[in-house]
């Protein structure tokens, strides 16, 4: 048997590709703590997200590569280090401790953005990531209700100034524009006022280190969307749609807006896809089904999954407990976990290419 060295092992592992990033795990810097002693090989594969949907594939490929050079005695551990989409140069980063900002958006209201956003945030957390939830829906801030937060943010002193410390709900830091409004008051602000309020929500919150900040956007393609895409380095936007034709027209509009401001679309989620009757177990496709998937195909956007109409989802939402916390083993919770994994995988891909594209250098000579 030939002598096994670190170099042999690394050479072998160079044949293992990250199936999503299409580069080998060695040059991606994912192989950590490599130790070769007495013929035994130990190392850690650092995935780009704890919600990695491809862990088994990578594990199997590593085993095959090691077997190829005659290593039979090995230990592969898995860790995760979420990578951000931001590069060093550029505008003042309002969220320096946040690696990825993900907008949950839709061209129209009432498709369940807030429900999807809060459950996705909880799902990513359950996968092991650090996640924050920002409710930017100024017209109808519903995250405080869905997450059951009543505490107002605390003011804390940071570096000579003040920041807001977000209250924690079900383990997630949560911030909502709703915390600053009287419960029954409507927001009747014009653009400049809105911009100011959003700026504060972005810059003056002490989020701490986050892998993902999930932002629940207001519906449509207006002031708030523009402010976010100008003020922040947004990693990507997830579009939520219901299946019927008329709702899908708005998906197209939302996509065209994000294209203009060069915010990548992470994928489409179809909400209210079907309803399973608790009496006859039949799947009723109330708003038809599969429309979002067809739209995704047309526009070459990844389709992330279908979320069924589930009375328990609505019921627990109204009580301020995400279904993933209350009924983690339910069908719909499993769907959310699966969608979150796909989402995290896509974000890793986008971050990787964004880091390359955004390495813009601004110099003067």
């Amino acid at each position, binding site marked *: 048997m030939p002598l096994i060295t670190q170099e042999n092992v690394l050479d072998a592992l160079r044949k293992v590709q990250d199936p999503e990033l299409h580069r080998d795990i060695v040059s991606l810097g994912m192989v950590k703590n490599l130790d070769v002693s007495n013929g035994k090989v130990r190392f850690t594969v650092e995935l780009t997200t704890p919600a990695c949907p491809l862990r088994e594939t990578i594990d199997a490929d590593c085993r095959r590569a090691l077997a190829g050079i005659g290593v039979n005695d090995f230990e592969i551990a898995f860790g995760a280090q979420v990578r951000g989409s931001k590069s060093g*140069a*550029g*505008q003042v980063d309002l969220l320096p401790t946040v690696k990825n900002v993900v907008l949950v958006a839709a061209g129209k209201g009432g498709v369940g953005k807030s429900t999807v956003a809060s459950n996705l945030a909880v799902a990513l957390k359950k996968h092991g990531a650090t996640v924050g939830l920002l409710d930017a829906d100024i017209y109808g801030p519903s995250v405080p209700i869905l997450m059951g937060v009543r505490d107002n943010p605390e003011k804390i002193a940071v570096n000579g100034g003040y920041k807001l410390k977000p209250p924690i709900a079900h383990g997630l830091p949560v911030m909502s524009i709703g915390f600053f409004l009287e419960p029954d008051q409507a927001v009747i602000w014009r653009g400049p006022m809105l911009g100011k309020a959003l700026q504060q929500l972005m810059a003056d919150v002490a989020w701490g280190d986050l892998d993902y900040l999930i932002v629940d956007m207001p519906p449509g393609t207006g002031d708030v969307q523009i402010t976010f*895409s*100008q*003020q*922040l*380095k*947004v990693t990507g936007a997830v579009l939520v749609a219901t299946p019927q034709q008329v709702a899908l027209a708005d998906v197209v509009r939302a996509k065209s807006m994000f294209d*203009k*401001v*060069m*915010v990548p679309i992470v994928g489409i989620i179809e909400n209210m896809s079907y309803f399973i009757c608790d009496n006859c177990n039949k799947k009723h496709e109330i708003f038809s089904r599969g429309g979002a998937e067809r739209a995704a195909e047309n526009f070459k956007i990844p389709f992330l999954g279908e979320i069924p109409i589930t009375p328990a989802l609505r019921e627990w939402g109204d009580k301020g407990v995400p279904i993933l916390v209350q009924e983690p083993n339910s069908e719909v919770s499993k769907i959310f976990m699966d969608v979150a994994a796909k989402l995290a995988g896509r974000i890793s891909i986008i971050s990787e290419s*964004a880091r390359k*594209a*955004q*390495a*813009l*250098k*601004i*110099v*003067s*000579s």
Partner: protein
Amino acid sequence: MEAHVPVEINHVKAQRVVRITWDDGHVGEYALDYLRGFCPCAGCQGHSGDLKFVHVPDAELAGISPVGNYAIMFHWSDGHETGIYTYQYLRSLCPCDECKRQASEQR
């Protein structure tokens, strides 16, 4: 049209130009007066829809900052800084011979 992004923006003070290197290797040199004249803000362009050139003599550049993932803001020394130049717009403004020839062919 394929979307291009700049990889380097260099304000060459001695020549009073901004040199932009794009991700496809293309390089364009924009004179400061030219850039300022085609400022895309509503104040300079109005709402007629036609692209206007507003001549501001001796425009000096005080700073450049990126806007989100898609645009650049030029800060002029007279305090004007409302123009958000999207990458697409900047590329379409490229004054090099090759780009001008392509633009006139398309017209």
